[in-house]
């Protein structure tokens, strides 16, 4: 996993509430057996029309959004299916952080496992961000702060172990594997 301590970028805003993972990555793209190349299918049914042409009014098709690394979404993004193809698609597209007032549990976990930062902000900050697409934002992982450049700043919650993994560019697998003795002891106790 890539080390991540600071993200600075303009934002893209997709204000819809309850953006489910079927929207982020429709099921017909889940037959892949790798993690790669899913960025082209991100938001496929909102991004392209029936003929595969970009829908101009959709935020990701706005030329001004090109290069943005921070996605600001309406409340409860990532609800529904556990498909990790959703964060894989977001990362492959170029996003490094997803910001909302509420982020669904499994999706949030999946983001953290891949170094895509889920940022849950307070209602007021969320409203400000939703109403200022393209705003320049700085996210500091070490201090857990999100600052709108030239505007307000806020702190956000980040599970300490996930934060440690992000700051050091390591994944959880190594830590779990280092607990082999404790796992063996548990299995013996349970007769496994």
């Amino acid at each position, binding site marked *: 996993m890539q080390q991540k301590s600071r993200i600075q970028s303009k934002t893209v805003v997709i204000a819809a509430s309850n953006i489910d993972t079927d929207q982020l990555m*429709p099921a017909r793209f889940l037959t*892949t*057996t790798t993690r790669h190349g899913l960025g082209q299918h991100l938001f496929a049914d909102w991004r392209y029309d029936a003929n595969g042409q970009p829908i101009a009014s959709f935020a990701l098709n706005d030329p001004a959004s090109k290069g943005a690394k921070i996605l600001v979404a309406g409340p409860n993004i990532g*609800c529904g299916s556990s498909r*990790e193809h959703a964060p894989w698609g977001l990362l492959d597209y170029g996003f490094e952080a997803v910001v909302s007032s509420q982020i669904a549990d*499994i999706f949030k976990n*999946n983001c953290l496992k891949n170094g895509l930062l889920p940022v849950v902000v307070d209602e007021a900050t969320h409203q400000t961000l939703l109403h200022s697409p393209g705003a320049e934002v700085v996210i500091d992982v070490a201090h857990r702060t999100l600052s709108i450049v030239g505007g307000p700043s806020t702190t956000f919650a980040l599970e300490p172990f996930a934060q440690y993994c992000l700051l050091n560019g390591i994944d959880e697998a190594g830590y779990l594997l280092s607990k082999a003795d*404790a*796992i063996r002891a548990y299995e013996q106790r349970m007769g496994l």
Partner: protein
Amino acid sequence: MSGLTLFEKIWASHEVVAETPSTPAVLYIDLHLTHEVTTPQAFTFLRERGLPMRQPQLTFGTLDHSTPTLADELYGRVPMKHPQAQRQVEQFVKNCAEFNVPLLDVQHPNRGIVHVIGPELGLTQPGKTIVCGDSHTSTHGAFGALAFGIGTTEVGHVLATQCLLQRKPKTMLIQVDGHLQPHVTAKDLILAIIRQIGIGGGTGSVIEYRGEAIRRLTMDERMTVCNMSIEAGARAGLIAPDDCTFAYLKDREHAPRGAAWDAAVARWQRLYSDEDAVFDRTVTIDASAIEPMITYGTNPEMSVAINERIPTKTGDAIFEQSLAYMGFKPGQSLIGQPIQHVFIGSCTNGRLSDLEAAAAVFKTKSVAKGVTVLVVPGSAQVKRAAEALGLDAVFKAAGAQWREAGCSMCLGMNGDTVPAQQWCVSTSNRNFEGRQGKGARTLLASPTMAALAAVHGQLMDPRGVL
């Protein structure tokens, strides 16, 4: 000190390493269910790191999501419609063979939807921790197991260590008093609960369902309720095991036998929330006030009783977009709404009792002209049991299609899809945009209401006609 909730009892008995402020708990997983869609990259992780599987006998594999429901395609007499799906199925078979994971291959007489076969085979048991790379793993909570969906990275963690790193979730009690009225089903109950607490209402929580109405539910019905806990955003749904649970499990293939059975039941009988246990949040529901439900929008919270009108939310652009997608207007009544497709199946409502409920309707009347009906059993066992009762003949005589087991039109991965702008009454769990095919309009309902819509070609209130 207050007592413990059912969740806390299961959690405590699976902590390999307790959580600290800086590290999550290491939680032991008793049963890992796997399927072809969310595992290929996890097996790749094992290969890349040169890791063995820690406990291959605690993982079970089945093929369900991308598998065809037409027998010729499923059994390889003709190629699958989607070559990429075929490759994914073949890759999973190869992965299971290489890592010694027991697999219910396409030919296996017990293959089926992962959340139907776990209980059916007696793999799902009270007090277990159960995970699967699938959000509807919450289904298994109906047995008093702590069961939740995980992503593919976590699937890899379980394959390699049989453990997960987890922070302890919050607890929510949903107390369902009274009992359900005639023609009101477990599906209506859970849709009503989701409407009340909201699609994100259970986020961060494990829900325990309790109360008279829950006690009176069969295991199939409890599974329908727990299955859709994720549609309220919950990590898991739980129902304390009782005699109904034990009777279901007795003599199942993987259930304990003889003295081990007696010991297991004695252990399972201690799995309940103590009288003085404290929940982070409690919601009380009056079961007798619930009516047959139908969704009208693009998430499972957007539902009404069948005799209610679609609400009006002036100035709510997202709500209006959702209605526009569905082809509905605020204030509209749904009774009499024409429909073109009906799907009966899925891990929510694809068990034998669901098929029996649908067949009871198809016995009286044939499928209406212009309506396509797919009946897809949740497993090969459900299929055989239905055929032994002659239900297949009822469906076919009525003009419905009787298919092979699988997830099918619930998510349309396997080619079973609904065309754009057409309405489908579905017994599945999600009415998200495009869930059943690009542009498809899904209305979630019980098997009874879906079957009634099939034979009338329009939505009906079961209370008026049954």
